[in-house]
């Protein structure tokens, strides 16, 4: 059951002097099981895009299909869509409202019409999947650290048992270790339960190591849609869009210009070091 965006455009403030084209004729197919990174700087349209995938906005033109059905059809239930497509907003911990963590995680599945038993099982399962500390299941959300709150909030969406999970800047405001912990956790979800992940971020470095497909948004359009390696090979265009390519790749590229035969598609520091070392040894 793929999610399909068919020529979506979104115009804000259409009736004023300064209409803003947030999305401009975007077409995307998101098959089940992929791990996708959506990258773009603030205002590139990526946040609008993901709200469309969750039926939170009506496109100015174009259609969105889920399971072969137009999601803006009158007889299509948005709730049903949201059950299958989970959306985690930026700073999701700001939506926690229940007295304790467990009750908050139960909110989603309860809304989806699950029975009490199903709801509780789903909540436990979700909290376990995000590796939330067990002794804090019944703690007040105000007693948690920043990273724990974020996990709890992600569990709240995961508990609805979605097939697609969209995360908007899930690492915003976290320190480096907290960042990797969340990204590793998300990658683990993808690996273990085969859930489709759409990771929305402005940081190339965050997504480079994890995803199999990168969609780059710029001025409301899809600028690139390919494997990370292929996308990062367009370093000049990316920099023009205000997106910094990962430093390891930037360095190997410069070395290539200087005649050192390193790999331009490296994504991590370790890969870069390996490739530079190999290139230097080959010359000797």
């Amino acid at each position: 059951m793929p999610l399909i965006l068919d020529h979506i455009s979104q115009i804000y403030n259409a009736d004023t002097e300064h209409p803003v084209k947030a999305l401009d004729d975007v077409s995307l197919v998101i098959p089940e099981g992929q791990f996708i990174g959506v990258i773009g700087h603030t205002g590139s349209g990526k946040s609008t895009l993901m709200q469309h995938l969750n039926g939170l906005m009506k496109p100015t033109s174009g259609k969105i299909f889920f399971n072969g059905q137009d999601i803006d059809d009158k007889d299509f239930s948005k709730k049903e869509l949201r059950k299958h497509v989970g959306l985690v907003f930026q700073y999701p911990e700001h939506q926690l409202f229940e007295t304790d963590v467990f009750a908050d995680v139960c909110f989603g599945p309860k809304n989806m019409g699950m029975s009490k038993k199903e709801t509780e099982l789903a909540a436990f399962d979700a909290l376990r999947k995000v590796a939330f500390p067990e002794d804090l299941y019944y703690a007040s959300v105000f007693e948690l650290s920043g990273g724990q709150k974020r996990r709890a909030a992600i569990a709240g969406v995961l508990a609805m048992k979605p097939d697609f999970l969209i995360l908007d800047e899930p690492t915003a405001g976290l320190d480096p270790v907290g960042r990797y912990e969340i990204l590793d956790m998300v990658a683990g979800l993808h690996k273990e339960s085969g859930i489709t992940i759409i990771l929305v971020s402005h940081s190339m470095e965050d997504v480079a190591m994890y995803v199999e497909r990168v969609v780059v948004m710029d001025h409301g359009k899809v600028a690139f849609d390919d494997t990370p390696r292929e996308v990062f090979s367009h370093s000049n265009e990316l920099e023009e869009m205000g997106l910094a390519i990962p430093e390891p790749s930037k360095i190997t590229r410069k070395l290539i210009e200087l005649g050192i035969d390193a790999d331009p598609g490296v994504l991590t520091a370790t890969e870069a070091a390996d490739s530079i070392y190999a290139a230097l040894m080959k010359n000797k």
Partner: protein
Amino acid sequence: MDIVKTDKLVFEYIRRDEEGNPVDVTTALDRVNIDVKQGEFVGILGHNGSGKSTFAKHLNAILYPTEGKVFVNDMDTMDDSKLWDVRRSAGMVFQNPDNQIIGQVVEEDVGFGPENLGVPTKEIWERVEESLRAVDMIDYRKKSPNKLSGGQKQRVSIAGVLAMHPKCIILDEPTAMLDPSGRREVIRAIRGLNDVEKMTVILITHYMDEVVHADRIFVMDKGKVVMQGTPREIFSDVPALTKLRLDVPGPTRIAWELKQKGLPLPDGILTCDELIKEIQKCR
């Protein structure tokens, strides 16, 4: 001369039960000695919860030491009669750009500090203009802050502090909520202040690449200063930083890994250009 000096600064959070008896004591700062000289650019690093923000709040007399002393421009922050002199000497920029802008128009916000200090009207205008110029936001002086990007809002906040003519400016994770281009513009503005205006800067952050150009770096963990030195000294010890839940700048990490493989690279490479130059020497 030391603009900021702390002497065995200790700060404890005490949690009390309903009757007011202490139940739990958390030592947020543990005998911290940090000194900052006039004109320096000092970076304070640490992961979330390392005590670095608690430290920052002591420099502006928002928090007071449980033990030890904090001196700002030779004034003891505990001295109540000096409170406002301390606060005008140590300007603070906070993390959330939305929650520190008071004015509805950019220039009015920048004027807020001088107004509080009782600066005459004509001089407020001069200060607002020069401060907005220093952060390159003069073209936005009549705009509403709500219409600005995160990076622009933080630059307005910096201007708001500058207009108070502080002795030093303390930035508490000013880029944590910004996107990469916002981060770049704020860091550029901060470096400009230090380079051009010779402003003393204390930058608190968990992004390593932002303090590569600092004069000195202090690394905090569990309320203690665990490392201090020049960026080169600090970043040459990659394993120690990793243990402290900190990242190292990309080029530094690659250089370190290459060194482990046996390449004769010097310690503490900080920038891409340095790394490339050194690698070329190895050919």
